[in-house]
């Protein structure tokens, strides 16, 4: 690639100039805004620059790009980015240059490349794209990164430096080195050093390997493995560094699996913990538990429909709403069906299964048989990068935290409140508790409401991960029962441990077995586990538990 002037000087100068131009433009705008002619004049410059791009030869295009960089036009950045993304297009009829903002469907919304004005939707057949090849792409990226490096905020500079790794050539290397002197931020310096080291490694310098060893960046790894293919001391060092990196990657991959496992596990815990209360503590088999989860998820969707434009607020509000909706439905189920089947667990199972069918069909009829999507609020999207190989998605972190909160809350309710005490009393000896003045029926209702409400909370959380549909609950009911049975009935801690470990086991199995087979293996594992320990991980002991 041929870059006619030293980019270093060019860009530095560009930066200074940009500032001046900006100021100047500002003045110009203030003074001469009414004079459209001025703007028109300005546009003509840009038009020429862009027209130079609309040529066949990629070499000519490279020169045109260089010209844009040198033009110090303040819109240059925008153009280059659009060109890189393939969004810079020319209208076939009037020759206008536009930057499309969305390329879904047939009609694409776009803005004028020169004025920035919104030009509405243009049929994609009327547009022709300015094509680029890989060499141009690399040129564009380097140029954009350099601009960012000089003008950007800290995070932008960091991204720019990271983008440069593997794309550094002779000329860029010089300018990077001088930039390194000016850079104050340690992280950015680190990145720049890596970018330079990759370049120097390509030149066969030994000390570059040292700088690069331990880096988890994928471009660094590519450079190292390229270097490792050769012979000699550098190649040997590169090989050693690669082994070291592989090791680190393995650890990171392990951590990632653990993270995904724990987050899946916390979903399982959320789904199962309500069941642990109704099934474990009260001994009631509620097959409609999954549908209570589903109702919680639908509450979230409902709240977002009611509060358009405030997805975050809606999600927060749906926590109490989801709880109440599911708790209410739970109480209705308890009063209308379950209380009549006391002491007949198998019949309870069947009857509540019937209820689950009714609830599913109800949602299908009233809302829709189709899936609904819940918007993820802004503060829940994105991820936290721990290092190059490991980043944690925020929504899963939130759900883990939520699961912990719900769990702690339940433990506190069971241990510290009057209700918890009464629940435990009724569980252990109903007649005795009654004779001591505990209203067993009321305790039943409250316990069931609590368990069902927690199912609703699980639904609120699940709505952030999957689509909300009438079958949502069905896919969780068997898993939830597995978790409760695995953990030991009547033991909230057991549910926590079982849920988390099943989540992790599933994630460990998935890469080599595939999602479906992993699920089958987990089910088989639990079936076998129950053989060995019929009362779960943490069984209740003693004569009373034998019944």
């Amino acid at each position: 690639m041929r870059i006619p002037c030293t980019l270093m000087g060019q860009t530095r100068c560009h930066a200074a100039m940009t500032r001046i131009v900006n100021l100047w433009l500002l003045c110009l705008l203030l003074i001469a805004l009414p004079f459209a002619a001025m703007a028109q004049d300005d546009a003509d410059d840009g038009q020429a620059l862009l027209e130079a791009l609309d040529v066949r030869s990629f070499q000519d295009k490279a020169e045109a790009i260089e010209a844009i960089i040198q033009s110090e036009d303040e819109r240059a950045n925008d153009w280059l980015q659009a060109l890189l993304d393939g969004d810079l297009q020319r209208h076939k009829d009037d020759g206008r240059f536009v930057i499309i903002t969305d390329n879904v469907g047939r009609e694409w919304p776009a803005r004028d490349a020169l004025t920035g004005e919104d030009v509405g939707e243009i049929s994609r057949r009327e547009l022709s794209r300015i094509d680029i090849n890989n060499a141009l792409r690399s040129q564009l990226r380097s140029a954009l990164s350099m601009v960012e490096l000089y003008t950007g905020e800290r995070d932008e500079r960091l991204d720019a430096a990271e983008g440069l790794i593997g794309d550094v050539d002779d000329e860029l290397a010089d300018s990077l080195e001088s930039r390194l002197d000016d850079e104050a931020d340690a992280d950015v310096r680190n990145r720049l050093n890596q970018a330079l080291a990759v370049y120097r490694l390509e030149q066969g310098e030994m000390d570059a390997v040292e700088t690069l060893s331990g880096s988890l960046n994928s471009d660094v790894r590519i450079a190292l493995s390229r270097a490792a293919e050769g012979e000699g001391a550098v190649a040997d060092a590169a090989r050693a560094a690669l082994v070291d990196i592989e090791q680190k990657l393995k650890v990171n991959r392990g951590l990632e699996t653990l993270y995904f496992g724990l987050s899946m596990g916390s979903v399982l815990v959320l789904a199962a913990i309500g069941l642990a209360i109704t099934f474990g503590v009260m001994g009631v088999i509620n097959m409609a538990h999954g549908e209570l989860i589903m109702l919680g998820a639908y509450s979230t969707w409902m709240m977002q429909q009611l509060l358009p434009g405030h997805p975050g607020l809606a999600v927060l509000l749906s926590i109490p709403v989801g709880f109440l909706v599911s708790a209410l439905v739970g109480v209705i189920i308890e009063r209308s069906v379950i209380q009549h089947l006391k002491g007949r667990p198998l019949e309870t199972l069947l009857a509540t299964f019937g209820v689950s069918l009714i609830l599913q069909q109800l949602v299908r009829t009233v809302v829709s048989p189709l899936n609904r999507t819940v918007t993820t609020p802004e503060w829940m999207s994105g991820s936290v990068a721990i290092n190059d190989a490991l980043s944690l998605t925020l929504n899963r972190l939130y759900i883990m935290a939520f699961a912990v909160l719900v769990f702690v809350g339940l433990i506190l309710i069971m241990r510290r409140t009057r209700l918890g005490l009464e629940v435990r009393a009724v569980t252990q000896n109903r007649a005795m508790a009654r004779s001591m003045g505990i209203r067993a029926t009321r305790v039943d209702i409250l316990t069931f409401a609590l368990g069902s409400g927690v199912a609703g909370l699980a639904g609120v959380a699940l709505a952030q991960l999957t689509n909300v549909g009438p079958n949502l609950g069905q896919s969780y009911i068997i898993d939830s029962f597995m978790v409760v049975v695995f953990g030991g009935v009547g033991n909230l801690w057991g549910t926590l441990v079982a849920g988390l470990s099943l989540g992790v086991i599933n994630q460990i199995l998935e890469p080599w077995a595939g999602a479906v087979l992993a699920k089958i293996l987990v089910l088989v594992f639990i079936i076998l586990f129950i053989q060995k320990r019929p009362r779960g991980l943490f069984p209740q002991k003693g004569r009373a538990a034998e019944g």
Partner: protein
Amino acid sequence: MNLWQSMARRDRVFEFLAPAISPVDVRHGPILYMEDVTVSFDGFRAIDNLNLTIDDGELRCIIGPNGAGKTTMMDIITGKTRPDTGDVWFGSRHDLLTMNEPEIASLGIGRKFQKPTVFEALTVFENLELAMTADKRVIPTLTARLTGDVRDRIEEVLTMIQLADQQAQPAGILSHGQKQWLEIGMLLMQRPRLLLVDEPVAGMTEQEMERTAELLTSLAGKQSVVVVEHDMGFVRSIARTVTVLHQGSVLAEGSMDQVQSDPRVIEVYLGESEEAA
């Protein structure tokens, strides 16, 4: 006579000839031997270093306050509960800790539960039929026929437990006392070497109690009988040797009079119950 019939016949002959007394070896001492048995539930020691021997043909009464470990002891002997430590031997040949409930039952240890458990959906006759000593494997049970000998034996026990008139009725509609009797009858059908009887006279009338006492004492000698009972009058009427359990271990052992004069026993148990009586 075809092959099938001859097979069936041999089966019957075998059952008829089968020794009613299981090969338990009591030449070298007691029929039941428990040593240093301990079992705990969640840290609570239900049985704590229990030592107990029952001689062949003995009638032993076991008393003790609630929670003394009487029922748990029976659970251990019959294989329902496994002790944490200790030895339990039936005769000198059979280590009961290595066997499961049906194996122990077929060795000749019969048990009557504290709460009478009879099969309520089955008739009295059928209850006894199931209890009878026979080849209890699946296929022989499937093909089993009600022979005259079986019928005779059931009739005999029916008379003994005075339920001959109710034999066609489901056991569920019997009175509490009758259920107790039925359960004892089921024990008799098994012809066990060792009978474990948990509170046999609970819910019985005075008359029924007397008859039970008579029955149990008549069994002793041929069979060993261990009776757990709360009713002191009943214990006094049948007991030769009495063992007092307290907090999972043996507190005292001896004749009724010896035990009653033991100050420790008076303190934990008898004193209170005599005052109450």
